[in-house]
């Protein structure tokens, strides 16, 4: 299936090791993007309220994001041989805007009275009352939205539907996502307790918008807390008490500190992927956030890398015409029999890749990392992964052309692809130009089957979608053997 070339694409030639340099550079760009996503996630967790952060944190956040963007634009220009200079300008503009917004925010903070609110009541009584209250949870979950509230519980996991009036209740559930019908009950709820979820996800963000105290990752909450139980949720201190703790309720949840508003505003300018920003023309000047810019830069860099690798492969007579994938392998004995590329190949073969019609796919591998670049339907699909023994160093990234070409005006490839990728637990971003997905921090065993699914998606030529992307996604996963897992 493959024609394997040396990493350096012909070491006998003098001059720099072009393929190694560009592949490493592209990987650095991707790593930067992943770091940006980590920053975004971390900032969202901080927004949840369990952490105390100060202005310095927000300043550092802004500078760290700018540095990632600058670095990404730099890498892009190295990969495109200085053909992307306008990105620098866009980057400077966005960086200046971010700094300006930060400064404006900080100035308005300074203008506010910096006094620390005095103690609302004598500490001893409060402490005694709290110590006496029956504790259900302390420091067990993560605060996703601050505040203090007390009410009877409505447990959404109750068999036969929730018991009681959800309005004004403390809602308890195993987990919610933005599509859950139960989310409608959130309006008017007193508080929300979830077994799962994350302070960085959409539901947490919604709870904050509506100022509903919320604790997530509260283990077994939906099994432990029955409907009708009166609880007091202290999402200022990550605790849940049985019964009403009047002394706590008397404290109330004050206004959130200005730092939280500042962080919210800054996050928007840095980390949002504005879907429409590059709808008509993918130009850096249309980017509205640093994330938009990094996203665009990584797409363009992937395209350029494809061009480069194709050109290098063409120089090699050894690149046999019959190969489906031309593989550049690092000197260190890397092959395609094991490691992440092997898993992708399993999926591709199952998806029916055949050698007809010239090579349009290229890959670069070393011992436990790979990058696959494949021409697809007028664009480039990219898969990149690392599967080491250290989960924190592992990642899976992929990007798919969202359509099967002229016949697929509705973009079924993108819609189904996004659904599949979401179902295998990746973080998916879909824009009109591509579907991209990230998975980070998994171990090699978790990544293997996911890489197979991704390989299958790359090779997949569509089929009868029946107008139902969810169903089609389910079918594809079943064929890949995913649902059995």
């Amino acid at each position, binding site marked *: 299936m493959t024609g394997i070339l040396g990493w350096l694409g012909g070491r006998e030639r003098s001059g720099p090791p072009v393929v190694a340099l560009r592949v490493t550079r592209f990987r650095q760009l991707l790593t930067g993007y992943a770091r940006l996503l980590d920053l975004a996630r971390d900032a969202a967790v*901080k927004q949840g309220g*369990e*952490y*105390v*952060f*100060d*202005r*310095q*944190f927000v300043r*550092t956040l802004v500078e760290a994001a700018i540095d990632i963007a600058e670095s990404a634009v730099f890498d892009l220009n190295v990969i495109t041989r200085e053909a992307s200079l306008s990105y620098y300008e866009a980057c400077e503009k966005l960086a200046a805007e971010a700094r300006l917004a930060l400064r404006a925010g900080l100035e308005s903070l300074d203008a506010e009275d*910096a*006094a*620390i*609110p005095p*103690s*609302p009541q004598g*500490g*001893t009584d*409060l*402490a*005694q009352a*709290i*110590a006496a209250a029956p504790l259900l949870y302390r*420091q067990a979950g993560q605060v996703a939205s601050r505040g203090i509230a007390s009410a009877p519980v409505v447990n959404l996991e109750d068999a036969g539907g929730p018991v009681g009036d959800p309005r004004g209740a403390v809602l308890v559930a195993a987990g919610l996502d933005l599509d859950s019908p139960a989310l409608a009950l959130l309006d008017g709820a007193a508080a929300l307790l979830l077994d799962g979820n994350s302070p960085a996800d959409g539901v947490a963000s919604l709870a904050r918008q509506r100022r509903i105290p919320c604790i997530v990752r509260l283990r077994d909450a939906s099994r432990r807390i029955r409907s009708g139980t009166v609880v007091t949720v202290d999402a*200022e*201190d*990550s605790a849940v008490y049985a019964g009403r703790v009047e002394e*706590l309720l008397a*404290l109330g949840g004050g206004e959130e*500190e200005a*730092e939280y508003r500042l962080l919210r505003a800054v996050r928007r300018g840095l980390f949002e992927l504005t879907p429409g920003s590059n709808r008509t023309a993918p130009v850096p000047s249309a980017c509205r956030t640093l994330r938009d810019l990094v996203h665009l830069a990584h797409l363009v860099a992937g395209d350029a890398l494809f061009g480069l690798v194709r050109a290098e492969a063409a120089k090699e007579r050894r690149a046999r015409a019959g190969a489906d994938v031309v593989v550049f392998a690092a000197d260190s004995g890397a092959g395609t029999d094991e490691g992440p590329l092997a898993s992708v190949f399993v999926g591709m073969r199952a998806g029916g890749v055949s050698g007809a019609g010239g090579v349009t796919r290229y890959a670069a591998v070393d011992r436990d990392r790979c990058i696959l670049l494949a021409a697809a339907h007028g664009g480039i699909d990219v898969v990149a992964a690392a599967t080491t023994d250290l989960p924190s160093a592992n990642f899976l990234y992929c990007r798919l052309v969202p359509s099967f070409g002229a016949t697929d005006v509705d973009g079924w490839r993108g819609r189904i692809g996004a659904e599949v990728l979401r179902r295998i637990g990746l973080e998916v971003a879909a824009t009109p130009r591509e579907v991209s997905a990230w998975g980070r921090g998994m171990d090699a065993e978790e990544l293997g089957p996911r890489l197979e699914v991704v390989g299958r998606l790359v090779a997949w030529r569509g089929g009868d979608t029946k107008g139902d992307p969810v169903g089609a996604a389910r079918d594809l996963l079943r064929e890949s053997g995913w649902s059995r897992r």
Partner: protein
Amino acid sequence: MARVMVVDDEPIVGSRLRPILERAGLEVEVFLDAVAAHARLGECRFDVLVTDLRMPGVDGLQLLERALEHNARVRVLLITAFATPELKRGVLARGAFECIAKPFRIGDLRDAVLRAAEASAAGEE
């Protein structure tokens, strides 16, 4: 009841710590101004000092020294956004009880303060 002084020129630190520490039954004084805190350390005995490292006027290490001068059993927690291992080592070597990186989980800091208060009460000098 243990007495805790919290010093940070960033108001959010005091305003979030105070209620949490009071809930844990501690007596808390909060200072934005390190110079005022420095003066206050001479007037009153504190069991635990929680202070930022970098502040205008007087820095956290000066406060640490001042606190130890007045009460050899005081336990000092330094909080800083620049918690490099070297800094941490330096701070511990100067007699701090713990060095905590900002941003911190509020529950973690509360626990550290409680540990410090306990150690102060058990008190080797």
